[in-house]
């Protein structure tokens, strides 16, 4: 794959979906795609003034508009060396909590809960859960009210500006918000009990890495100057690119991220995993009561984490307001700087959000915005694959679509609004040919024949490789030849790597299956003796462009004869590849 320098994005919320393709007993393809059109938002900001940029970028997403505004302001003020007074910081924190409450209550009650209690949507659920639906609506409205008070309107408010706020609310307005937050507490605790106590399915469970902002002074919170990873590593916000390394995939306009070549997750679950020990008050008590090690491996617990954060937000609001009302309303902090470079990071409800700018001569010359869903995309695909293959192994194919829906929704991409995103596709007979054509588009492949020539059908990969060589195909290797090489494909890192092997899918002998190599890695049924050696020789990026062409053996007893159906398959593949 050609390496493309990524410094721009289109928005990721809106239209999207995940499609899994099943070929017999193997899931051969899972794609999480964003169909939303490309907007080139970062490019649009070039040549604008810092103020205009702060007007425009929140339009990336209506649901995370406040988080975008907050991140942009922090980045711009960092670039322009503007230090805002404490009342401004407090009011921004308050406005951000409004968005957190609005988004989390909408997501937990309206989008996620119907799945767990067996209703198609929240309106249908209302008959049996009228209190829950009503509370959720009121919580959402309260979150909206805070955003309107702080930003000027529910969506895309312009009151927060570089250097402060256009206008501050009166003491009465703030005290009303405080008293309302206190009134909500009994319902808030009920919310935590409800979502932390749900019976989350066991599939998918798998380790990942979590990343979030590291709030200052060892507090819980939704902004900071550093990024904290679940490995214990801490990155300065200015080094965010070490974490994100964005890249493009051909099936989506949303960009993607990996850390040191591996996918990671962001969002409420990442925050609770990394910072949960810092929770105090009722939220702290609830954390200690409910947190367990499944929260570290199962993305579905994101809903539980969101409920804990609702509790944190409601407890934090009165503390902020008590401090705010003691302080006078500060005027906008003026600035004269016309050059600078700055980064701002905050936690959007759905995870780490990064804005980074360069200003020259008073105008924006460089913009980089990394959204949470771009960072989660790789893990969304990975967990969907794990769920699909595990359910397939258990013979529960019928559950795959709904489970993938649950997984995608748990990650809370803004596109979770569209009710059913997951699709399960049955591969057509001989679908490997279609996949083969797709792989060829990525470049001319390097082949590796794998197997044991003295175990009858297990020798088919080696035979196929030798036959390809005979036909004059370049870059064909045998497994035995690789041991002497340091990195046999060092000149072909951008080319697809195709392993030819006999793979037992428990299918009809001779069936050909072509699937991504890393699927085999996480598939316990298909696990393979060669993998430790091979994976140590392949970078993660190359691994993502590597495939296994597996032929179902009839027998792998000792012997040198290859069975008839497998031989027929060999010839069929040979013809297709040399065609």
């Amino acid at each position: 794959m050609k390496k493309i320098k990524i410094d721009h994005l289109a928005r990721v919320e809106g239209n999207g979906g995940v499609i899994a393709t099943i070929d017999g007993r193997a899931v051969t393809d899972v794609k999480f795609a964003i169909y939303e059109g490309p907007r080139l938002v970062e490019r649009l900001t070039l040549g604008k003034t810092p103020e205009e940029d702060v007007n425009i970028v929140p339009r990336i997403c209506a649901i995370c508009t406040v988080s975008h505004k907050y991140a942009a302001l922090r980045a711009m003020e960092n670039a322009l060396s503007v230090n805002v007074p404490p009342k401004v910081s407090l009011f921004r924190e308050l406005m951000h909590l409004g968005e957190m409450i609005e988004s989390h209550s909408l997501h937990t009650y309206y989008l996620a809960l119907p799945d767990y209690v067996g209703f198609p949507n929240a309106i249908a659920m209302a008959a049996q859960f009228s209190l829950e639906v009503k509370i959720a609506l009121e919580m959402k409205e309260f979150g909206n009210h805070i955003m309107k008070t702080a930003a000027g309107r529910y969506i895309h408010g312009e009151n927060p500006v570089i250097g402060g706020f256009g206008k501050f609310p009166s003491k009465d307005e703030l005290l009303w918000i405080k008293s309302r937050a206190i009134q909500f507490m009994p319902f808030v605790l009920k919310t935590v009990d409800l979502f932390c106590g749900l019976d989350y399915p066991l599939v998918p469970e798998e380790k990942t890495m979590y990343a979030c902002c590291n709030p200052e002074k060892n507090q819980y919170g939704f902004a900071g100057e550093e990024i904290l990873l679940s490995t214990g590593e801490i990155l300065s916000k200015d080094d965010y690119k070490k974490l994100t390394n964005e890249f493009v995939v051909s099936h989506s306009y949303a960009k993607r991220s990996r850390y040191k070549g591996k996918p990671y997750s962001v969002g409420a679950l990442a925050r609770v995993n990394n910072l949960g020990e810092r929770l105090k008050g009722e939220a702290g008590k609830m954390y200690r009561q409910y947190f367990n090690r499944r929260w570290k491996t199962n993305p579905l617990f994101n809903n539980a984490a969101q409920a804990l954060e609702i509790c944190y937000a409601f407890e934090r609001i009165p503390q902020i307001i008590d401090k705010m009302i003691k302080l006078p309303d500060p005027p906008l902090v003026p600035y004269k700087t016309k050059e600078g470079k700055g980064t701002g990071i905050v936690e959007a409800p759905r995870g780490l959000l990064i804005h980074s700018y360069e200003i020259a001569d008073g105008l924006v010359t460089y913009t980089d915005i990394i959204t949470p869903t771009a960072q989660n995309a790789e893990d969304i695909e990975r967990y969907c694959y794990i769920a699909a293959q595990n359910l397939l192994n258990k013979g529960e194919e019928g559950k795959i679509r709904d489970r993938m829906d649950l997984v995608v929704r748990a990650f809370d991409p803004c596109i979770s609004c569209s009710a059913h995103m997951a699709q399960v596709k049955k591969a057509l007979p001989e679908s490997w040919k279609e996949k083969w054509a797709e792989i060829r588009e990525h470049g001319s492949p390097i082949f590796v024949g794998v197997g044991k020539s003295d175990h009858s059908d297990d020798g088919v990969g080696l035979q196929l490789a030798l036959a390809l060589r005979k036909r004059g195909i370049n870059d064909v290797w045998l497994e035995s030849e690789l041991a002497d090489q340091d990195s046999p494909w060092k000149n072909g890192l951008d080319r697809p790597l195709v392993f030819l092997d006999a793979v037992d899918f428990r299918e009809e002998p001779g069936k050909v299956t072509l699937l991504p190599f890393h699927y085999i890695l996480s598939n316990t049924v298909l696990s393979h003796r060669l993998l430790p050696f091979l994976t140590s020789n392949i970078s993660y990026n190359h691994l993502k462009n590597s495939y296994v062409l597996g032929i179902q053996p009839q027998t792998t007893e000792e012997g040198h004869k290859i069975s008839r159906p497998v031989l027929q398959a060999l010839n069929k593949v040979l013809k297709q590849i040399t065609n």
Partner: protein
Amino acid sequence: MKKDKLKIGIYELTGCAGDALLILDCEKELVDIFQAADIQSFLMAKSDNIDGELDVALVEGSVSTEKERKEVLDIRKRAKVVVAIGICSCFGGIQAAFLKENEWEKNFKEVYGKIKMTHTKPLHSKPIDAYIKVDYYLPGCPIDKEQFLSTFNRIIRGNPPELYRFPVCVECKWNENDCLLNKGIPCLGPVTAAGCGAVCINHNLPCVGCWGPLAEANFTSEYHLLKEKGFTDDFIKKKMGNFSGTGIADFLGKIKGAKR
């Protein structure tokens, strides 16, 4: 005599989904909305969506892929009345602001490289009336709740909506704000369609023009006023074009005495 409820579809193309979200944010009125009309399709709110004949289609977002172009043509075929909601749908929005020739193509390449998209072909973002006839326009970024409810109310009774044919300045005077232009602050209130309630000026901040241009607005006068205040030609035109995309090009072209 009881009339059948009008069949209504709400659609989202490329944008921030803010207009659809704003409709959902009508928390107290939402049930009434669903009862007063037969909402056939509204992806953000419900899952059992039907794409059939419609009395009214409300369309949010701009057209920025081949798939969306086909979708908007299909909506036009099925709907008796099409209403563009939000600035992206009405004027193209922020993503349609590449006005120079080949500017969009160049930027697209710089963002996505040479990768070939497998799902749908990207297009330079345009308002929906670049492809279909639009009956009514409800601007806003996002649309305003009161303006939406009154428009919706009239539409479901089969009446044409009454849009505000005056600029933000009028609402600003109702609110008795001090004029920011008099203080030398570049405010787009005089040329921007009303409907927001002059919210930015109420917060001591200048209008950024997110409702889009008012058809009757005097852009020439605003341009020269801002020039007098010391702002450059580039600055003024850029400010006027931040939100309205391709929809502003005509207005900018008609400014008398401006640099071409």
